[in-house]
């Protein structure tokens, strides 16, 4: 049970960000779950390691919200896999997620990099 709680917490922690990362990955083309994990790891220079316990719930939730669609296809290595594709609705969502993300980064940045003189005055 504790393990489940841990997973659930992680989903919640990452939720907005993970959704945005998945949608962004799918912008480059349809991809299966394993491919998304690999793509995120490569692009982030091995920093972002997405847990499957977060990834698959997120994918299925995104599908339920109609931000992605899925279909079964053969991969290059002849492996049958479920490919996810971003929808028009998903693209809109990605844009708004990205906008929010940038505002947060900016806001956090302006808090973190305040010049000492200004804060004293």
């Amino acid at each position, binding site marked *: 049970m504790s393990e489940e709680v841990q997973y659930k917490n992680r989903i919640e922690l990452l939720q907005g960000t993970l959704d945005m990362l998945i949608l962004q990955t799918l912008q480059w083309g349809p991809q299966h779950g394993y491919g998304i994990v690999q793509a995120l790891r490569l692009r982030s220079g091995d920093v972002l390691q997405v847990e*499957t316990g977060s990834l698959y719930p997120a994918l299925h939730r995104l599908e339920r919200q109609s931000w992605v669609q899925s279909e079964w296809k053969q991969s290059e290595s002849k492996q049958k896999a479920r490919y996810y594709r971003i929808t028009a609705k998903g693209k809109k969502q990605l844009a708004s997620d990205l906008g929010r993300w940038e505002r947060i980064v900016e806001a956090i940045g302006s808090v973190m990099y305040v010049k000492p003189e200004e804060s004293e005055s």
Partner: protein
Amino acid sequence: MKWFPSFGFQRRKRELQEEIDAHLQMAIADRVARGETAETARQAAAREFGNIPLVQDVTRDMWGQAWLEQLGRDIRYALRQLRKSPGFSITATAMLAVAICANSTVFSWIDGTMLRPIPGARDTGDLVSLQRGERNFSPTPPFSYLDYRDLREQNHTFTGILAYHNDWIALTGGAQPERAYIANVSANYFDVLGIKPALGRFFLAEEETRPDAVTNVVLGYSLWKNRYAADPAIVGKSIEIARHPVTVIGVAPEGFVGAAPGLRDDLWVTLDPLGNDVFRMTHRDIVWLIVIGRLRPGVSRGLAAQDLDTQMRHIVAAYPDQHLGDNQITLDPMWRSPFGANGYMAATLPILLAFAALVLLLTCANVATLTLVRFVSRRRELAIRQSLGANRMQLVWQMVLEGAVLSIVAGTMALALTMWTSKTFAWFFPANSTPLALNGYMDYKVVIGIAVSSLVAGMLCSALPAWRSSHAPAIEVLKAESASVSGGSRNRKLLSGLVVAQIALSLPLLICSGLFLRTLRNLAAANPGFQQDHILTASVGLNIAGYSNDEARLIRHKILDRVSALPGVEVATLTDWIPMTLIQKRTDAYPEGYVPHPHESLLVENAEVGPRYFESLHIPILEGREFTQDDDQKTPDVIIVDQTAARRFWPGQDPLGKRLRVGGSLSTVVGVARISTHTFVNEAPEPMVFISYFQHPGFETMVQVKTEGNPADLTPAVENAIHEIDARLPVFDVRPMRASTQMASSFAVIQSALAGMFALIGLVLAVTGIYGVVAYRTQMRTHEIGIRMALGASRVDVLRLVLSQGLWLTGIGLALGLAFALGLTRLIARLLYGIGANDPVTVASVVMLLGAMSLLACYFPAHRAMRRNPVTAIREL
């Protein structure tokens, strides 16, 4: 998929498995490509992936279907728990099923009568029944043809207004004449009702008043099926009605039996099919039509009534002489239309439904008691589940689910039972001359009713006990030994409350049923003012079989002569009406010289009766004389009035020799009859005028015979005597008068039978309820009682301890129940006869009965407790 979430669930589970497999395969393939061995690659990929079932679980949560799987698990758990205590499960289910069935049965009767006033008609909610003038229980047809036509053509608020008039008719042409119920209807009758023909067509507008046309007839479905063997080529054929050839133009669809709620028409013709009723088609003072209108969309009943009232006032202003008396138009929805059976239904059935609802509440209280006791005995299990992490809502949900499972099973049983009980309604109506089509009906409304009541019952039974039980602190329960707490003081209060509720609910049921039963007895014992024990009546279809007036007159005289001469016959006479059969005839009566107030009602009941009628029924003639053979068409018209009419028209004067205008002719009063019952024993007496049968033959020809012995024994002799005159004469409804007059008390029988049954259920539930609770609580206190006895309490002390606790509850229950009953009996006061709504004898005996039964129920556990050996009692934990 969204609507049937379970559909495809297995497929999606399988797909998720495949998706994860693919993920692992690709991970392994990558690792192998990087040079790892197959085995290490597999292990590493699996490690990297993590806990597969867990991933599946959290992913499935995203589907929004997890609740379904959970529900399945919960239901299986609930079923397992219920199987563990079969005694409780069976008892509770059976009690709930009976209580739900009581409700659904009464509701199916309401559904079949009030909610389905005209089977087959479209949107009966838009139909309204028109009444002119005085409102009473079973009014006579209120409109003349010309008034009806003016209203139909001049109103602004109806899409259509139809009119009809019912009569008996004989279907001749076959070997034996067959009696059928026919309706003369306006041409738009079927259109306004929204009925489409099963075969052929219905009437055209131009056929309504065209006497030159060939007479057309529309057959009812069952008549077509039974008498004409469902002949598919019947349309266009000629059949014989009352010895007149008529052409069949259509067949009504199956199920449609006419516009009068609760009555059956067998066939339909136009208003003046033979062209020989010009008089009633052209006179505004001949009222004979029952009128139903269909409101325009969006028009309220009040607005429509205003509209018609305005039109009616114009008509009255134009023809004042034909519209003496009250002309106010009132509209009723069909479910309580005064024409047909629904007026009676609306007065009886909703009250019975209220009683049934009480029974259901009472049953819920009883089952809730059992449930609470059961949950208390399961408190260790609940505590363990709680300490394992189940939250309170989950516990409550699980317990409520058990109640829901019970009530769903009970509801299903009730549904099956109701299929049968809904059809028992017709049993309550004795054989009589009215073509009743009354019965319960099962449709989606009844099913919804059952579903709702079983769900509500399930909630009531389990929610409260579940909520209470989930309160128990887990640690305390697990630590403490079971005997030391009898479920906690909160549970004790709830148990007591439930017992009080059961007694308080059963008391009004018992009082009402007592009042109904005594009403029934009073009705049976009441003197109706006439002697009906040795009377046989037989209807002869003279008019309906198409005999001319002269032929009919001759036949009547012959019948009287022949039947009078039969051995065993004391008196034979003619009448066109039998009292207490719910049939009434009313007509306007204007005494000579009497000046009515404006809008004063001048209606009187009337009957055509032959010589020696009053003698045969032992109705005393207080003044003057009764009719004789000589009061025929050669002598001036004479009438006999009853005391009510005499007082109404000539207060303080001698009515003999006074003259009254009835049905168009001025008649002289020759006698005053003592008041007697017309329709109901408990009616407010209406003025009654008797007309000499030989001067104005009634529509019905009924031979009324006073016999020396059992009237039923004379049935064949009377039938033979009539058939000897003419073998083709239809004779029907030959039965003792007592059988016919049972009709007047059939509603009292329904009320008392159902109320009695409900009250019996209530009594059993209340008594078992209090027994169960007192026994249970005494059981829980065994240890304590043992200590008390060891410390010197006597057996009498123990007895008093247990009894007082039960009696205390009974007392509170009785007090609350009395208050409740006083409110409820006011509702049924109208239906009672010869007894007050708060009749002290009934109330006192019911209170005593319930009190005594409760005392008995408390005595057994008290007695058991008293007899315990204190040493074993203390040891028992």
